């Protein structure tokens, strides 16, 4: 799984979001490693939709602070499993790095 795809899944894991909200969420993280551009985001979204890890959510209408032309995206159960597996893999890597004293215990 590419880092941008994991970041999107991570963002959608807490709830449905539109494109710009996803970018904001990713970039708001303290350890945000990425500068996400619009083209990059939507190419990744296309791949995730093709793999059925993400699905377009129902449009939200009638909310004052929202543009009803926006599309929202939601994580699918498969997407959640894939994100969990990837997170576990990363945790395991971190553990190994810690065991190898590449990072300190509280890092």
């Amino acid at each position, binding site marked *: 799984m590419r880092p941008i795809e994991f970041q999107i899944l991570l963002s959608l894991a807490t709830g449905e979001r539109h494109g*710009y909200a996803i970018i904001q969420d990713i970039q708001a993280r303290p350890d945000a490693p990425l500068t996400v551009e619009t083209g990059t985001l939507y190419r990744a979204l296309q791949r995730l939709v093709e793999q059925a890890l993400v699905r377009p959510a129902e449009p939200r209408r009638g909310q004052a602070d929202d543009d009803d032309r*926006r599309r929202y995206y939601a994580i699918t159960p498969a997407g959640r499993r894939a994100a969990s597996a990837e997170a576990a893999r990363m945790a395991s890597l971190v553990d190994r790095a810690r065991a190898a004293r590449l990072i300190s215990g509280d890092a």
Partner: protein
Amino acid sequence: MRGPVPARTPWWCRGFDLLLRAFPAAFRDEWGADMRLTFAERVRTAEGAGGGTPWRLLLREFGTLLSGGLHERLHSNARRFQMVQLQDIRYAFRLLARSPGFTLLTVIVLAGGLGLSTFTFSFLHTAMIRPLPLGEGDRIVRIDPMVRGGMEAVDVADVAGLRASLATIRELGSYTGREVVVGRDGDRRVVDATVADPILFTVARTPPLFGRTLVAADAAAGAEPVVVLSYRTWEIGFGADRAVIDTHVALNGVSTRVVGVMPAGFGFPIASEAWLPLPAGTEAETTPGLQSVRLVGRLAPGVSHEAASAEATMVLRRAMAVRDTTVQREGLTVAVESFPAAQFGEERALVFTVLNLLAALILLLALVNVTNLLLTRANERIRETAVRLALGASTGRLVMQGMWETVILAVAGGVVGTAGAAAGLAAITRWTQANMEGNLAFWWVWRMDRVTILAAGAFVTVAIAVLGGIVARRVTRTNMREVMQDGSARSGSRKEGRLSRALVATQVTTVTVLMFFGVLSGVVARRIVTLDPGFSTVNLLQAGMEPAPARYSTAAARAAAFRAVHDRLGAHPEVDGVFLRRTLGNRLSDDGRFALRGSPSDGVLPTAHLRAVLGTLPTMGIAVVEGRALEEADDDSRAPVAMVSRSLALSHWRGRSPVGDQIRLAGVGDTLRWYTIVGVASDVPYGNPLSRDRSPDAIYVPLLQSDGPFAAVVIRYRTTEVAGREALMDSFGAVDPSLVPDGVQPQAEILRKAGLLATSVSQLFGACFAFALVLAMVGTYGLMSRSIGLRRREIGVRRALGASDAGVTRLLLVQGGRQVGVGTLIAAPILLVVGLGFQHFFPISGWLVATAAVLVSAAIVGLVLLATWVPTRKVLQVTPRDALWVE
């Protein structure tokens, strides 16, 4: 009332829209609007935060849009291309499945052509070119002195000099072949051993299966006699018992320790069954003429065969000039070649090229026929092609669809053909191992290997290129309007007719050459199979006798040994007749030259087969026609005498008797003695039955008056072959226990083996040419049938205008004859070359070659005219009205 003024689209939004076009349309449709919203919101937020145009953000966004868009477009195209190809492949499979007859026929024809080409190439490559299957086998070479084109052995006196001087060849070692008797009394077995410098095993880079190979200490003076066994000898002679190591076996009566067994399939240098050490003193010998050996070595890295050959020639010439200034060896060269190359001699490249060309002709024949089938099919679908073009299908797409059909057919044919070639190669290996056991070079193991698979791939690629090219040409030249207006599925254009005629001419040329080659090969094979040796082979056994040079170092000692063996055999109760002979010269080489005393010479001496003989001439079917026979008493103590054959007497002593005249054997260097002719012998043909030098022109001189290191001993036994073999063993052993009859074989067996090989080769050729003939017959009929079918409408018009059936038939036959004429004309120079080639290599007369050429051409003419006449009759059965109006 004026509506609200629409807000002006900012420039960066227009820029975004422009760059969004880099993405494929499908992507834009799906994601474009949402992307635009996200982008606009992001830029506006940045504007609000920074209070100005966010240039850095815009730069990053635009750059990512462009590169991402192009990337997506590339992937999307690749995906679409794959999808289209997948569709086309499925379509091609469906079309082929719809016509199983066409598919099967095409695959069979292609499999035959491709399989034969692959088989022929692989067979010849293994036999002649493939490096020895040993470590760095491509660098292992044989070093053979050549005098006037003939291969000679190396005098041991030259070995030390060569080894010291040659920089291009390393690990130089000498070896010689010898048959040795392994075992004692009733449990004896003759094996072909190699007596070699232990360095031979270093050259071979092959470790023993177990035990050890020969080492330098084994060759030292006084060392314990040791032997290394081949896998086959160990298996057959010792029951594959591992305990054989360090046991002692009798070799020519001498107790010898077995020190090692080599792995299966190892027979270096050629077909060795055991290896004995060449005494170290042998190569230190400086007196010339005592022993000759063969040389083996490894090319230094980066050195070519030619460079090594040039250096070895220079070194050997210099060495010979230093040690013997009286001998002028004109034309001495040293050939440095791989073992497979040396085995086939100078004609290797020619044989390889010619046989591969013939195989390629069969492939060409197959391709011509498949082309015809594909074109017929393309014609049947021409209307469909035109409709698809009219509906907007691209020519490229239609070509690709045709190509896939061709690729599937060629690959299927290639797979079946290659499987057939693999089976053929395995069968050849089995056959040769069963029938040529012990005489087979160890590298002659035919099987599928990397080179064969690559060759098969190359042949399939050629087939795809040729067939695909023609199919593509047919599609690209489809005139949509013409086909649609014509309303006919045939569209018999002038260009189409030209292609059809070209195919017929190619077919005629190819099949004429193949048939001609087949007929001449058949004639040669038949001659070998039905060869008359000139004498009865009943109860005849032949063996070689080579007294060891160390023990028989003088001419008198050797003559005494030959005489003693002759006398012993003559007195043996089991022996009905005994005959010793040695070939001194042959009719078509310089060593067969002789001079007649008192005959004016124009500088060119006549030639004959020169044979030194001892014993009863009738044993070999030779009768005394005039004068007396050569006798045992005719030895060196008496004046030299000779007999000539009747045919030689008739050609050189016309109208008078040669008895009393004198001749000199100039070809063998015997220029001091005049031999007085004492008798005329009946004719017996000599010479290689495969060669043009087979002739009864012969001169016989007494073996005891002509010194030489060996002789062939022929006996006619009275009761059984076993008793005959024992008589040979006993008689040789009684004269000297170290004398062993070499290669004892019944004469009939020798002839049978020669005939067996010829029969098998002729059967193989027969099968190939039968396939070619069937292809030609079916193919020619198909081509003519198609060609005439294309003219159905024209024939209908001619008949409607009053042309008679006979007239139309005559017209088509004449036109068919014209195509045969063109094909035959193209074939004529090729036939000439093939005919001359056969005459050069085989004893075939010019008239026979000419007759074969005429008969083959006549047969092909008949075949094509018949193939024209039959479809013509069919077309004439259709009424002019139907021909004009019915599809």
